[in-house]
C-alpha cells in the first residue's frame, strides 16, 4: 500500500508538545453523580471519614440490615446518610451515574444484591471497593455478582483516590 503524504494539519503532527497548546481548553464539570454506600460496620467508619472531604457530586450512605418479606427473599434495603438521616434507595439512585459499594466483610452481601439489582435496572454503573486485602475473601464474593469493577486493597486511601479519579 502506498502511504499518503501527511498534510500539515494531520493529527500525527498535532501530537508534538508545541501543537498541544492548540487543544481546545474547556473547563470540565464534575461528570459523575456518585453514591458511595457502606455495606458493613467496618465500611461505615471508612465512608464516614471520606465523607468529610470536599466532593462536588458525591453522597455518602450507609445500608442497614435488609428487610425481608414473608418468603425470606430480600425486599429492600434501607439507607441512611452518614449523618444518620434515613433516605430511600430509589430516590438516591435517581439521576446517578455510578454507585460505589464499600465492604470490609461479607456482612453486606444481601445489601449488595439489592443495590446491584436496582442499579442494573436503572443502567447505573456499579463498583466495589473491598478493604482488607485477603483477610476476608467473602467480601469480594459477595460483591462479585453485583459490581462491574472491584478493587481489593488494604489501603483506605483508595476510596478517595478512586472518587477523585472519577471526578465525583
Amino acid at each position, binding site marked *: 500500500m502506498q502511504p499518503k503524504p501527511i498534510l500539515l494539519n494531520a493529527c500525527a503532527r498535532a501530537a508534538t508538545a508545541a501543537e*498541544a497548546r492548540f487543544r481546545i481548553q474547556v473547563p470540565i464539570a464534575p461528570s459523575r453523580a456518585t453514591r458511595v454506600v457502606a455495606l458493613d460496620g467496618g465500611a461505615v467508619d471508612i465512608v464516614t471519614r471520606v465523607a468529610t472531604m470536599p466532593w462536588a457530586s458525591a453522597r455518602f450512605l450507609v445500608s442497614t440490615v435488609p428487610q425481608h418479606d414473608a418468603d425470606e427473599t430480600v425486599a429492600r434495603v434501607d439507607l441512611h446518610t452518614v449523618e444518620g438521616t434515613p433516605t430511600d434507595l430509589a430516590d438516591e439512585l435517581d439521576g446517578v451515574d455510578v454507585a460505589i459499594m464499600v465492604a470490609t466483610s461479607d456482612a453486606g452481601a444481601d445489601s449488595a444484591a439489592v443495590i446491584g439489582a436496582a442499579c442494573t435496572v436503572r443502567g447505573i454503573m456499579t463498583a466495589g471497593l473491598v478493604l482488607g486485602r485477603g483477610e476476608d475473601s467473602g467480601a469480594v464474593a459477595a460483591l*462479585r*455478582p453485583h459490581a462491574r469493577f472491584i478493587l481489593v486493597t488494604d489501603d483506605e486511601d483508595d476510596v478517595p483516590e478512586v472518587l477523585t479519579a472519577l471526578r465525583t
Partner: protein
Amino acid sequence: MLRQEINELLTQTGPGTDMGALFRQYWLPALLAEELPENDCAPVRVKILSERLIAFRDTEGRYGLMDEFCAHRGASLWFGRNEESGLRCAYHGWKYDVTGQCVDVPSEPENGSFCANVKLRSYPLVKVGDILWTYMGDPDKRPDLPEYEFIHVPPEQTYTSKRWQECNWLQALEGGIDSSHVSFLHSGALNNDPLFKGAAGNKYNLGDLKPFFEVADTDGGLFVGARRNAEDGKYYWRITPYVLPAFTMVPPRGDHPVHGHFWVPIDDENCWVYTFDYHPVRPLTGDERQAMKDGYGVHSENIPGTYRPTANKDNDYLMDREAQRRNEHFSGVRGIAMQDASLQESMGPIVDRSKERLVPADSGIIKARQKLRKAAIALRDEGITPPGVDTAHHRVRSAAVVLPKEEGFFDSVQEAVSVRPGVPQASV
C-alpha cells in the same frame, strides 16, 4: 483525572525528580544484548532517564555504560574508537575503560597522574537474558539482579525485541495495564495474528465486550483480572500482572508463547518498549520466532538497522482505511504494538491527565498511579524501598483460566500467577 502536580511527579524521570529517584532503585533494561554483539564492536548511544550515555563492550568482553561525552571538551564518545580495552575519544585521544575511568590522556606526560583523577559517571551494565540491564542508583543500595522469568528460561525459549515510542513512559505503561481496550482495538488480531489466533479463549473475548474487572493489590504491584462469561455458568478470567515500576505481562492464549513489556523512560517525551515472548516449558518454534521478528503478536516491524517502527507518526502509522472497514484492524493500523503506540502517541508527548474522564473500568490505572505516587513519596520522605525491588516480586506470570462463578481469580489462581519452573503457563 490527576492533578497537574501529580501528573508531573509521575511523568518526570530525570535526575533530581521524585520518579527519577524511584526508577533509580531498580535494574532497568538499557539496551538489547544484540546491540553490542562482539568485543570491540561499535559503541551505542543510550539515553535513559534523561541521561545521555554511551554503551560499549571492550576487548575482554566487559560491558560499560558511562557519560556519552568526553571529559576534555565534551565531544561525543560515539565517534570514538573501541580498542585495546577502552573507548578512545576521536577528538584528542582521551581513553576510558568500562568503569568510566580515564586511562590515557595522550597530551600529558607518560606516567603522569592527571588521568587518574578523570572519571566519567558510569553505571553497571550486566547481561541477563537477551537484555543488558543497568542500575543507575546509589551503588550501596544496588539490588539483586532481576528475576523475571522471561530472562531466565533457556535462550531457545525466549525472544525480546525493542521499539522506540514517542510519548511519555506512563502513557505507554498504562496501555499494558488497561485490559478493557483489547476487545476493541486489538479485536482483529484475535482472528488473524499467528501468535494469537486459534486459542479457545479468544471466543470469550470476542463474545463478551463488557467484561467485569477486579484489581488486587500485591506487595510488588497489582493483578488486574478481567472476567467474561464462559460456558456452563463459568467465567473466563484474564489476569494481568503489573510489577513496579514498569513491568507488565499480557495474559496468554492457548499454547502460544506468553508475552509482556518493560517500559523504560528515554526522557520525559520518549520511551523504549522492551517486548518479550517466551514459553515456560518448550522452545519457540521457527515459525513463532519468525512471526515475532516480522512484527506479529506484540512486537513491531522496525526500520532495518533501527528500533524505530516502520509504521510511525511520520507516515500516519501506514493507516489503512480499507482494512479498517473490513474489520481486519479495528483502528486501521496493523499490528498490536503499533495499534497501541499510535493512539498513545496521538495523546501528545505527555498527556494532560487533569482533562481525563476516567471510568470505573480504569480502576487498574487509577491504582497503579497511586502505587507509583505513594512509592515515590515514601522513598523521598522516608527512604522506604519501593515495591518491585525485591526480586521475589518479579516471579509472577499472567494467566488465562476458566473458573466456576463462585471463585474469584485472586483466591483461586495463586499458583497460576506465580513462576513455577518446568510448569506450563495457565492458559485457555
